[in-house]
């Protein structure tokens, strides 16, 4: 059996693993922000870039994802009208958590990965909750936070697909 070579791998272009998912996240966020009620219920409002923070840290360590997450977080703050800098910090916290535990998470079953994703997302929401509490002097609604967390948790298949799509793209990072 011959060892895999760099030449045998698919190229990992930044636009492919960073650019396109970012555009999908931005487009979906704008789409889900439409003031529409279906059967009396508003559309869910998941934090799509959290799925990207999880997947990007697993695919490979790189200089680009933190800055891409910074931009995506700023976009969320501006489009949702929240405090500027809140979501960038939450996304970067999620990315840092996964990057630190990368060796433990990589290659695990889907269920374990989902649980890891849930824990990472919870850490990000926890940080956001703490920052908002400190900023406004009053704790945000746990129920509202729970709903958004749940909606974000359901985005795991998107993160899973991204990881599966690119994790073997460069054998050095297996």
């Amino acid at each position, binding site marked *: 059996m011959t060892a895999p070579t760099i030449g045998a791998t698919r190229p990992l272009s930044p636009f492919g693993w960073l650019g396109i998912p970012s555009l999908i996240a931005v487009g979906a966020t704008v789409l889900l922000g*439409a003031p529409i009620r279906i059967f009396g219920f508003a559309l869910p409002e998941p934090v799509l870039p959290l799925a990207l923070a999880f997947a990007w840290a697993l695919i490979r360590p790189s200089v680009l994802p933190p800055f891409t997450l*910074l931009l995506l977080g700023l976009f969320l703050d501006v489009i949702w009208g*929240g405090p500027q800098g809140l979501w*960038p910090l939450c996304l970067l916290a999620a990315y840092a958590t996964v990057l630190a535990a990368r060796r433990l998470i990589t290659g695990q079953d889907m269920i374990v990965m989902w649980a890891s994703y849930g824990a990472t997302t919870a850490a990000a929401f926890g940080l956001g909750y703490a920052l908002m509490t400190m900023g406004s002097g009053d704790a945000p609604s746990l129920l509202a936070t729970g709903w958004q967390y749940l909606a974000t948790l359901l985005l795991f298949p998107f993160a899973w697909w991204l990881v599966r799509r690119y994790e073997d793209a460069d054998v050095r990072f297996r």
Partner: protein
Amino acid sequence: MSLRDGPFGDIRVPLTWSAAAALVIAAIIAAALLLGDRRETMKAGAYDTARRAVDAVAGPVGGTISAPVRWTHSGLDYVRGYFDAVSDNRRLRAELAQAQQLRDTLAAVQVENQRLRAVLDIRTDPPLPHVAAETIFDSRGPFANTRLANVGRDHGVTEGNPVLSEHGLVGRIVGVSDHVSRVLLLTDAESRTPVLLVRTNGRAILAGDGGDSPKLDYIRSAMDLREGDRVLTSGDGGVFPRGLPVGTVVRGFDGGWRVQLDSDAAPIDYVQILLFTDFAQLTDERALTPKDLPTAMTEEPSQSILAPTATNALAPRAEKSAVKPGGQGARLNARKSAGTAPVAAKTLASSVKAAAAAKPKPAHAKPAAAASQP
């Protein structure tokens, strides 16, 4: 010479370390932005260019996305109208009978109201101009509850304008672009609204927390609260006009008092923005800061302002101070100079003592008059 040819060419930094370094830099930038955020200050300069630009782009995009859905809803309503015609007819007949009774009651109440107003000579509030708008983007998360409305500076909208739906107060404007404005909803975690309870005339602060029903904080006479109490804006602080409908008091899951918002009764698709300039905006902070302080009116130590008699010396100065232009700014100056001119205060104190000794009058009356002197 490239970097690889230099002495540092052989140094290889592990990718994880470089990623971590990038992470730290990005986090520092984000933290700096968060610390410098001025979302809630509600001043014209606080809503930065980036937010304005994104709002300006997001407005038409949101409008375009929501338009087909609205058309579909309208079409479905049209078709549903045929199927519901019979039941609607019955319901409308019943409502008509009820409305006729209400009309009679209304006429009686109007007459009574006119008489009472005439008796009390109450001046009605000036009618507030308003603009109608359509909401085109909605954020509903726990950390931000805002909406974009499709009117902006071109329609005269400014920061602080109250926003109402057909049922009640929705929030207020916190950012304005040329054609789009950002509405901070009452449910936002940073929204604070002074309200009053109609039954008891008690005051409270309506504090959003990202949930559907904002909390009632700082309730005066909390023991008197009951579920179902009507809540209106109190007008305290001048941000909202008094008397705008807000909602109804309910018990929350946590046992605290909350408000079921009137505006929740229907989707907030169309809103009314009152072009109400709040008192805070009328106040120019820089104008309140004294630019040219009045000349220090210190007395010469050798002379007393009360000589030869205390009343003669104080009365003309009080008159002069009262007619001096400058209003509140002048009063602030007076307070400020009273607090920062120990020489004058000392002189006045000694003069008042002399006056009290010269003319036996209640001692507390004179110092109060003297303290208002610059």
